[in-house]
């Protein structure tokens, strides 16, 4: 089955910019999550908007853009007031990988939200970036090497 047949929106990553590596990591993460979760792909197809993800301890950020057809990850902080999730990089990875729920992270002030419209994009970003629980059967890494 092709990707389009499964309605998985393509993920495009800006290869140049101050946060090119962070953009690549976020893009890879989202792509893997969409591949493994119909619910995430369904949401990603229906959301329009931009969200800023900022690694506050690194002074770096990326902008995730949804346009209903694709997801673009820009290797920079787009100007303007956007809904945002900010926090130290390691705190962001804990939320993305499900070690800490977004609510827990907010309560502990590990991460902070910048609220702006449309909030649906922020909720969608949180969903498509969070690794589905079933991916981690235990704390082992993937048993099948990626052959990269």
């Amino acid at each position, binding site marked *: 089955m092709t990707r389009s047949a499964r309605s998985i929106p393509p993920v495009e990553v800006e*290869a140049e910019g101050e946060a090119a590596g962070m953009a690549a990591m976020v893009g890879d993460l989202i792509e893997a999550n969409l591949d493994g979760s119909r619910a995430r792909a369904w949401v990603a197809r229906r959301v329009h908007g931009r969200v800023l993800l900022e690694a506050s301890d690194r002074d770096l950020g990326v902008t995730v853009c949804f346009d209903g057809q694709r997801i673009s990850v820009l290797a920079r902080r787009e100007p303007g007031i956007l809904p945002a999730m900010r926090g130290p990089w390691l705190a962001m990875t804990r939320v993305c990988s499900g070690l800490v729920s977004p609510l827990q992270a907010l309560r502990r002030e590990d991460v902070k939200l910048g609220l702006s419209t449309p909030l649906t994009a922020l909720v969608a970003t949180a969903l498509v970036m969070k690794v589905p629980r079933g991916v981690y059967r235990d704390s082992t890494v993937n048993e099948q090497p990626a052959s*990269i």
Partner: protein
Amino acid sequence: MPDIYTNEWYDAVREAMNASAATLNGVPTGSFVVAVEIVGDGLSPYVEQGSTRHFLVKIDAGRCEWYREIASSEDERRAAGRGVDYRFTGSATAFDEIACGVLDPIDAALRGTVRVRGDMRFLMRHAEHVNALLGAYSREVDTTWPSGMPPYGVPSAAAAASDVVGTDAMMRRDGESIGA
């Protein structure tokens, strides 16, 4: 103190990584292999310009089992005994700067100075472990630099690395090959 990129240095890095990993809880119980590709950029005296040095690092149950140099990427599967889970690619200057503590390895990865490929879900799951290993690599080994040490001067590691890993402005992720 061992010279950079010698067997003694690899052993010292391995011991530093393991000392650091021993302080952590929740390290991954499985094993993974990381390929490191260090590309000569004309600044570092340790990698000839235009050539690449290849390394493999095996992490098992959170500990570095071995860290070794191999002749080429073609030797990866034989040397690793399996496929490679992650691949770190960057300029020799960037890796030299990381090894001597001038360049933060996480910054290098986030800025794209060192390109990281592989399954990000697991890398993020074990980010604190990876952070500890990279910190040991960067700060915990007293290294000697027989041909000189960084900073080597202009251009910076970031600029040099962009020559190594630079690509089109936007990359379509689906179908992208990240093989050697």
